[in-house]
């Protein structure tokens, strides 16, 4: 048991630069996501918006300060500071932090400030937030604790003294990311199988024919077929068996493809573009990019180095 666990924690990350991919894709995603609401920024965040920020802040659970709290606090120190000033600061500071994170400049600090700013922005509009925001927080948190600036970053080029990431350290971090993702899918599937509506196709029917903002195609003509029943069960199977098949080398790519297809379906039929995109990034960072080197190696000379070997599935 100890040997298997040791093997699992120490070997497997063939491409040690996967944290670089995680960092760049997370920063790019968060930046694009934030840019996508710029046209409606005032409507969501300002006192000229749909709901006044202090009213939204009243329902905040108090774990993360809102921009209203910061305005009140900073207003005592800086006389004449308006809420609009605070808003402009956070709006530009978040984008700056994400740009630095993507480029890998002072990576850990920029990741930390990106995370804190994102939490403050989201807590300020707590009623407007949804799943994509939670996953952005998760990925930004991993950018803080993982050695995300050790590869593909300006830090690694500018500060040559920076140690390159060791394979065992990269593997350990990768395992955390992978196990987290496995929990996400297993719980998702487990919750679905608990409800009878997913087992009889009703939930899938409801999801794709509901009042979604975007419909790629109308599928109501399939109502007399077994399509919704099969699609409901397929969703449950893909999610619940994700931790098993994604960790078996032979089935990994197939399961990754099935999972990405599931998210593309959510994107096209439910209109949740950013939620799907962040989940695809999470999947690629955990189960595709780390094994890229392995794929290349299958076409090159075999390497028998123990660090480069994949663990035997438990």
């Amino acid at each position, binding site marked *: 048991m100890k040997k298997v666990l040791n093997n699992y924690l120490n070997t497997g990350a063939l491409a040690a630069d996967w944290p670089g991919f995680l960092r760049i894709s997370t920063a790019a995603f968060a930046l694009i996501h934030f840019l*996508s*609401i710029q*046209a*409606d920024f005032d*409507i969501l965040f300002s006192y*000229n*918006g*749909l*709901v006044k920020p202090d*009213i939204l802040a*009243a329902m905040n*659970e108090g*774990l993360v300060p809102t921009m209203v709290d910061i305005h009140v606090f900073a207003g005592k120190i800086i006389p004449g500071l308006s809420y609009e000033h605070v808003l402009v600061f956070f709006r530009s500071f978040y984008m700056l932090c994400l740009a630095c994170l993507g480029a890998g400049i002072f990576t850990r600090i920029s990741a930390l400030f990106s*995370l804190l700013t994102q*939490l403050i922005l989201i807590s300020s*509009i707590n*009623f*407007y937030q*949804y*799943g994509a925001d*939670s*996953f952005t927080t*998760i*990925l930004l*948190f991993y950018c803080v604790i993982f050695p995300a600036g050790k590869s593909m970053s300006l830090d690694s080029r500018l500060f040559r003294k920076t140690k390159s990431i060791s394979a065992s*350290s990269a593997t*350990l971090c990768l*395992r*955390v990311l992978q*196990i*987290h993702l496995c*929990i996400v*899918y297993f*719980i*998702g599937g*487990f*919750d*679905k199988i*608990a*409800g009878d*509506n*997913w087992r*009889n*196709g*009703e*939930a899938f*029917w*409801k*999801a794709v*024919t*509901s*009042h979604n*903002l*975007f419909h790629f195609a109308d599928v*109501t003509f399939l*109502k*007399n077929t077994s399509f*919704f029943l099969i699609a409901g069960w397929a969703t449950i199977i893909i999610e619940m068996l994700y931790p098993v098949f994604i960790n078996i080398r032979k089935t990994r790519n197939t399961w990754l493809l099935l999972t990405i297809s599931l998210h593309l379906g959510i994107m096209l039929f439910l*209109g949740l*573009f950013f939620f799907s995109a962040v989940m695809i990034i999470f999947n690629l960072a955990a189960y595709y990019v780390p094994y890229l080197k392995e794929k290349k190696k299958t076409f090159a000379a075999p390497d028998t180095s123990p660090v480069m070997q994949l663990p035997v599935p438990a």
Partner: protein
Amino acid sequence: MKRKLFICLAAFHLLFIIISNLYTSYTSYCDYYEKPVDSSLRKCISIILGNQPLCYYAKYTGTSAGYGYFAPNVRSPTSLSCIYRGGNIGPELSSNEASLRYDNLVGALVENINAEKMPVLEQEKKAFETKKKYNELVLRNIAMKMFNDYQLPPDAVSMSLNFINHTPLADARAGKEMNNGLHKVQELTLIIKQ
């Protein structure tokens, strides 16, 4: 040493995610099948999840989010209707993402006072009334914003938070037309003055 510490912290992090999510799954299961949550389990878990430092930890690491999306059942669609002089008006949003966030706001307001879960205890009734008043405040804000943006002449506006009826698959198979009727959860009539 550093490595062992990292492994311990990682194990705690992942264990925390598993416990909080399994409990969320269990409570949403009980909620869906209208079963009472086991009180001893609730007490036990609230010691862990209600612990203040752990609440901060969950918030700042993103682990406070539940992963049971669209489960055990897909949430019923919601809407906010604003009737002004016989016509429906809505906020002007230019991006799909902002519209999605607006839908989330409406969904959160509806969930805030879901009429099916009528309070029984005095404490629950107070909380329910507070939530109702809060919703009214939010609706007032939205109405004022639309009146200002569209420069509408002062008049009454009827606002309601609704669940949108959804035709079940069996009904659709039986040939029934797709029902888009509204099930009102909260209503409010505002008189907008100059």
